[in-house]
């Protein structure tokens, strides 16, 4: 990170004569853009809406959901069985409960985040706003990256708040702590980070929040559909259609598989198939983001 500075002589005697040091460090600009995005999310009530809904869910787990049902079930399962089998069953039962909660939070969190963030990219491209931003000594990729990172930060904070709180509540109520439940935080955030690149691309292309939202949600559904390839491929009657299905499967981000990875991690089953979903999704995200940057670079405002 360059911290080279240049000093411009003070021309404005009417309003102060001290020289101003202008840094050329991109880090300062990056942080300012992130902070601007967080400020906008707060002002638009997206931030509070997202955290408010998460809080409602947390309160539901805290006060309404009878987690002693879990304890009751554990007791019930423990009575007739032998010691070894009981321990195994209890653990598996609780892990399954954790897993269902994690999957729910993964889907809930991702949808909520997409709805909340869809407007944040097009808003910065509004005429009268983007012109002023572009007049600053800031590169266009940096503008987009700062906005992306700011949106991701808001969602990552919400995911952490929601999932960690529910982890603490369940642990506190049941006194059973499965740390692997916390894998839901990075996995949900990673999945959102990939989907957000699509929101960015559509935002740059169309400057429409509604279209960005539609495409992002559609992509999640398509991804889940493509993941059923073992079943679907047998139902397709031509080789080219099977190959097309397979190709799309590898191109599109793997929301479904990432959920499965999370399930396996929580159930302490080795996720045999986790590297490919991660890197193909990441590659998709990088490619789409680069596409958005390329278009943004050439666009007139």
């Amino acid at each position: 990170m360059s911290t080279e500075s240049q000093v411009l002589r003070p021309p404005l005697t009417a309003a102060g004569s001290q020289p101003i040091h202008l840094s050329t460090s991109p880090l300062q600009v990056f942080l300012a853009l992130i902070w601007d995005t967080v400020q906008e999310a707060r002002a638009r009530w997206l931030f509070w809406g997202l955290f408010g809904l998460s809080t409602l869910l947390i309160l539901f787990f805290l006060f309404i959901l009878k987690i002693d049902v879990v304890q009751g079930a554990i007791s019930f399962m423990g009575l007739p069985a032998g010691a070894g089998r009981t321990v195994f069953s209890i653990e598996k039962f609780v892990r399954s409960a954790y897993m269902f909660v994690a999957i729910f939070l993964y889907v809930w969190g991702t949808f909520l985040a997409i709805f909340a963030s869809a407007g944040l990219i097009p808003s910065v491209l509004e005429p009268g706003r983007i012109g002023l931003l572009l007049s600053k000594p800031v590169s266009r990729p940096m503008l987009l990256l700062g906005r992306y990172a700011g949106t991701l930060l808001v969602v990552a904070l919400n995911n952490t708040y929601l999932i960690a709180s529910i982890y603490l509540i369940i642990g506190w109520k049941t006194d059973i702590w499965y740390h692997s439940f916390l894998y839901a935080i990075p996995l949900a955030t990673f999945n959102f980070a990939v989907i957000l690149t699509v929101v960015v691309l559509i935002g740059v292309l169309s400057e429409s929040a509604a279209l960005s939202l539609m495409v992002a949600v559609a992509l999640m559904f398509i991804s889940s559909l493509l993941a059923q390839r073992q079943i679907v491929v047998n139902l397709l009657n031509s080789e080219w259609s099977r190959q097309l299905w397979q190709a799309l499967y590898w191109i599109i981000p793997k929301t479904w598989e990432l959920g499965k990875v999370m399930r396996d991690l929580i159930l302490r089953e080795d996720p045999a198939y986790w590297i490919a979903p991660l890197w193909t999704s990441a590659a998709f995200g990088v490619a789409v983001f680069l596409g958005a940057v390329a278009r943004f670079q050439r666009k007139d405002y």
Partner: protein
Amino acid sequence: MSSRCAFKGENSESMTSDYAIETDGLQKIYRTRFTGRAFTAVAGLTLRVPIGSKFGLLGANGAGKTTFVKMLLSAVRPTAGRASLFGRDAQEEESRRPVGYLPENHRFPTYFTGAGMLDFYGALSGMSAADRKRRIVELLELVGLETWGDVRIKKYSKGMLQRLGLAQALMHKPRLLVLDEPTDGVDPAGRRHIRDILNGLTGAGVTIFLNSHLLSEVETFCDYVAILRQGHLALEGKMSSLLTKQGVVITVRDVNEQAQRLIAGMASTTRVVEDAVEFTVPTPLEANRSIDVLRAAGATIYSVIPTTSSLEDIFIEITGSSRNAGARGEIPGAEETVAAAAMSGVHQ
């Protein structure tokens, strides 16, 4: 105009210039998305703005003024030609560091307070937190918003937003100030305030590039002017030399027909105003001859006033616009909105 500037790390041969803005054959052609029809917004503009000058860019709506400014600041990519700021290619982000910009129809994020907005744009310009903090206080005071710094800008009036926008443009002490309709929506007192601030800046060597449709504003403030017509540079020069075209207006009463015919032969215009006749003759020599004729005819000479042609006269002559420029001295533009209309729904 001999001051030279150079940025740190620049090649001193190629990166110095006597000009704050220099364009060479700058062109922008927009094409409609589906038909591919081309509209030339700016047609090969070559322009030089000397360092420390107050330069006014005029033109009717759609003449290409805003597109030209946007090309200078890289918001719009030129189709051909080049632009440089202080000798540095305008496409380079560093070329924009010494530039302060107040856009037309700006939309500042309303979630900011006045001070918060200045802080954000100051940070983007590379200012340190300490400089920003000090500068925000100075500038809010300068533009008369010292008690409004902590108020969300959605509560600001149009005039207050313009003043805050000016403070934003001045935040990092720019050497070039590009102002697109800076007094739009500002009341007369506010306009004067803004003009006073800008006059204070030029004394310190800041170049001001003013894009305005208010002819009187440009005439009273700028020392250089350029007029665009349908993307072409129709006129460029020093304001003082453009306004030297002299004439004499003679207003008389009780003038007989014979004398009226004689003087009408010398006058460029003859106008009947209520019970008087107003002759405009082009030179003092013809004015003297006219006065002799009028005296001999026994006419009552009511007034003899030497005049210079106003910027409005020059503008109308150059752009060929016959519409009355109006009492406020605004540029008539409705008939020349081809490029503006073409801009909607078109792409590069």
